[in-house]
């Protein structure tokens, strides 16, 4: 495993563990304070399971007041706190520290208010993303951001990571669908930001904390926008003889004024891997394939499907299939959603990257990945949220070969650096966490990073909340940063990814 430098362990905190546990048991129900090493074991990692570290103690507060008291206590005693939602994050954002209190929001699992008149839902942060849609779907409403792990990931975690999903281009990410939060700062201050109104006045603190990866506050309540379900949804499965043709088709669809609900691109390696895995009926002779999802009223969708077919034909599509019904549409998606386990079938291990690039640079980036794949002699499969430019190359290797791991790491870092070089960014939806921390200086100079650190200090003067995440500790930009999966298994192998 790569060496990871984390904040210096405060030995005095470790020494006074018993007192800390005793005091925490005074604040919350003593049964919800876990401190035995066997109890701590399940919390030693999150979705980035290559990194493991047991926390000092785990707490499960039940209400905002308790969260405030815990933070206030830790702040005055200078104890580090790491917040954790469902623990499905892929960038190690809730990796514990040896001297930290791991603050779990699992008891915050209730939907507090479904308000159709104001088209919003108020939920506690531990509620899963999908539960929000489930709570309103009887009235044909839904919550738009749909990260692939939505059956397990929590809405509080979504806010912390600004989670996206396959429909981000049309419906935005969490930040565009969030109306308000109740948050607790490290000093115990409880702040209500936003609410049921569309805008909030003054500094957009809601925008600042969304995607702040648990470094600025602990979220204890969330208000999100809900939307009416579209009348009709159809998906088109389009095969292309070359990756260039598919890339060009994506640009032309967007330039023609169509904003698809989702647009996914897969290369030949992934078409075969996923089709073997779920028999989705993908065009196996194609070099690349697009799934274009279109939604709206019945007339809208018919018109859009027609337009997309016309564009695809003009751009040398080798096959076009339109979903006839909901069952078939879901089948089209099933292959794409099984990209992770399908790759697990092809190689013992793989790394998944998460850069975002301008759509027009896709072919250039894929060519570079191909070149690097030859250079490092490692196969790679590519899944791409073509609609919003989010690229997920999956590098396959065998971790039993130590040299292969090292090579893979270098390969991955080169891909991310190339994403930044063509005008893209390091991470589109997985977050920086510990995973891409050392690559931050590829995108930001020291002044940029110092400004962000000053904001951190403004809200957490002692740097006690989730320290060691997002911002580099070392000055040097180490070459690391990806999801490590061994034997096709992530921490939660059954959750669909990306």
């Amino acid at each position, binding site marked *: 495993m790569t060496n990871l430098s984390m904040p210096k362990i405060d030995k005095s905190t470790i020494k006074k563990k018993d007192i800390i546990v005793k005091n925490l048991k005074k604040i919350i129900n003593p049964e919800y304070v876990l401190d035995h090493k066997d109890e701590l074991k399940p919390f030693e990692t999150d979705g980035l399971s290559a990194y493991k570290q047991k926390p000092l103690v785990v707490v499960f507060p039940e209400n905002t007041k308790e969260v405030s008291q815990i933070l206030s206590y830790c702040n005055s005693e200078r104890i580090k706190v790491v917040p954790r939602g469902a623990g499905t994050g892929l960038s190690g954002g809730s990796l514990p520290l040896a001297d930290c209190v791991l603050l779990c929001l699992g008891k915050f699992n209730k939907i507090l208010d479904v308000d159709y008149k104001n088209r919003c839902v108020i939920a506690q942060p531990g509620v899963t993303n999908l539960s929000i849609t489930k709570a309103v779907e009887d009235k044909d409403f839904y919550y738009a951001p749909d990260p692939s792990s939505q059956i397990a990931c929590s809405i509080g975690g979504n806010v912390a990571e600004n989670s996206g999903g396959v429909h981000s281009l049309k419906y*935005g990410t969490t930040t565009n669908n969030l109306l308000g939060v109740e948050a607790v700062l490290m000093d115990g201050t409880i702040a209500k930001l936003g609410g049921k*109104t569309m805008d909030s006045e*003054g500094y957009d*603190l809601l925008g*600042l904390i969304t995607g702040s990866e648990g470094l600025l506050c602990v979220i204890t309540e969330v208000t999100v926008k809900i939307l009416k379900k579209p*009348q009709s949804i159809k998906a088109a499965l389009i095969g292309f003889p070359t990756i260039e043709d598919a890339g060009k088709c994506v640009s032309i669809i967007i330039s023609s004024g169509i904003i698809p609900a989702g647009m996914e691109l897969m290369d030949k390696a992934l078409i075969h891997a996923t089709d073997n895995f779920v028999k989705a009926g993908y065009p196996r002779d194609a070099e690349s394939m697009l799934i274009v999802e279109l939604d709206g009223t*019945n*007339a809208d969708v018919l018109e859009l499907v027609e337009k997309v077919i016309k564009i695809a034909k003009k751009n040398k599509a080798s096959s076009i299939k339109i979903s006839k019904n909901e069952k078939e549409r879901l089948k089209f998606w099933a292959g794409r959603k099984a990209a992770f386990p399908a790759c697990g079938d092809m190689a013992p291990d793989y790394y998944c990257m998460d850069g975002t690039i301008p759509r027009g640079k896709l072919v250039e980036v894929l060519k570079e990945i191909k070149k690097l794949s030859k250079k490092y002699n490692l196969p790679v499969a590519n899944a791409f949220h073509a609609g919003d430019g989010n690229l997920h190359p999956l590098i396959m290797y065998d971790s039993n070969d130590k040299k292969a791991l090292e090579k893979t790491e270098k390969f991955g870092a080169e891909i991310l650096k190339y994403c930044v070089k063509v005008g*893209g960014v390091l991470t*589109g939806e997985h977050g920086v966490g510990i995973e891409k921390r050392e690559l931050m200086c590829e995108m930001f100079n020291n002044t940029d990073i110092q400004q962000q650190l000053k904001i951190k200090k403004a809200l957490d003067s002692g740097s006690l909340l989730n320290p060691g995440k997002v911002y580099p500790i070392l000055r040097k930009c180490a070459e690391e940063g990806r999801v490590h999966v061994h034997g096709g298994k992530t921490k939660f192998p059954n959750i669909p990814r990306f």
Partner: protein
Amino acid sequence: MSMVEKQSSLIFQDSNIEFPEKEIEVANIIKKSYKSSTPVEIVGSGSKRKIGKFLQCEKTLSLSKLEGIIEYYPEELYIKVKPGTKIDKIESELKKNKQQLAFEPIDFGFLFLGKSNCGTAGGQVACNFSGPRRFKDGSTRDHILGFKAVNGRGEIIKSGGTVVKNVTGYDLSKLICGSFGTLVALTEITFKVLPLPEESKTLVLHNLNISNAPGYLEKAISSPNEVSGASFLPINPICTNCKMDIENTFKLNDLKQKGSITAIRLEGSKKSIEERIKNLKKYLKIDNLEISILETLQSEIFWKKIRNLEFFSLSKNNILRIIIPPSECTQLIYELPNKFKYFLDWGGAAIWMEACDLSEQMYESIKKKVVKHNGYITMIKYSDHLPFVEDVFTINHVRFNISQSIKKSFDPKRILNPGKMYTGI
């Protein structure tokens, strides 16, 4: 301080105005001001300068000459501009590729000058005011992908990028939106752009009132018909100082009746709009109501006038902007003095109000009621009658304390637009 003194201080500032043409010049000016602790007022074209609190700064930094489109990639759905670029220049460039700024920037010129003066990209971001499509497509803050700027230490900083999906570092683009120049002086802005709808039509329901119109708007927005505008213009209250003059404001032939207007906008292809209007009529059960349909040309004029507040053009009264949960709007209107001219936008989530003979006491009392309904109020335009209020914006002490810390992290000596939003920030 009297008004005369305030005005003369504004004139004095103008003689100390600097017009940097490059980012590095902006940085040098602010660096110098940082060293000498000299407060700086940052302005664009000045179209929204009167919004917020009066500033008395030794120096004025105008970004109007830091101007121009840096790059525009229609297929990548973004445009990168310098802050002094005029909004109408950006919009006409986008129109060539059938694209737009979907948040519909408000042209405050009609309110302050009686004619168009749409302001700059920097001003738009600094103020974060958005038009009628806000409830569907978001506000300015939802359409800014990245920026470069100079902070209060004179340092050039950046955040974000040119792509929609980006979680690399804190999202400072949101934070600077609506910060009224109190955190940074912008030097580069990247906006997300979207396709311009082919056509626009408006379903007008005639002669509803404040007790039933918001219900129709809510129902329309909550349907799957992708409504992109939902406003209500009442005919009452009748007040001699601020007359409700719907007929002369809009002058639209397609309107079959005089009286109040409840307007629902649909945008897209012709076929799609027709289907959605049909759906909506059925869904809203409006057989018993008089309706009109505004075709594209008139629909566009109508919404442009709503967006640009032409209803209040050249008003001599105070103009207030109230944002509340949409379900609260009817009750709030009942609780406010019934002589004020107003209209509802965003399906009732926004109330624009012209208040004649407003006193500071009355303003505070309105604010209390708005806050009680979980909303906030902004004094958009002063009048000769009420030329100054202590709190232009709404805030509570917790958010104030956090905002003060944030301000300090960008601008430790409080030299950038000090006090523009709140005393002490």
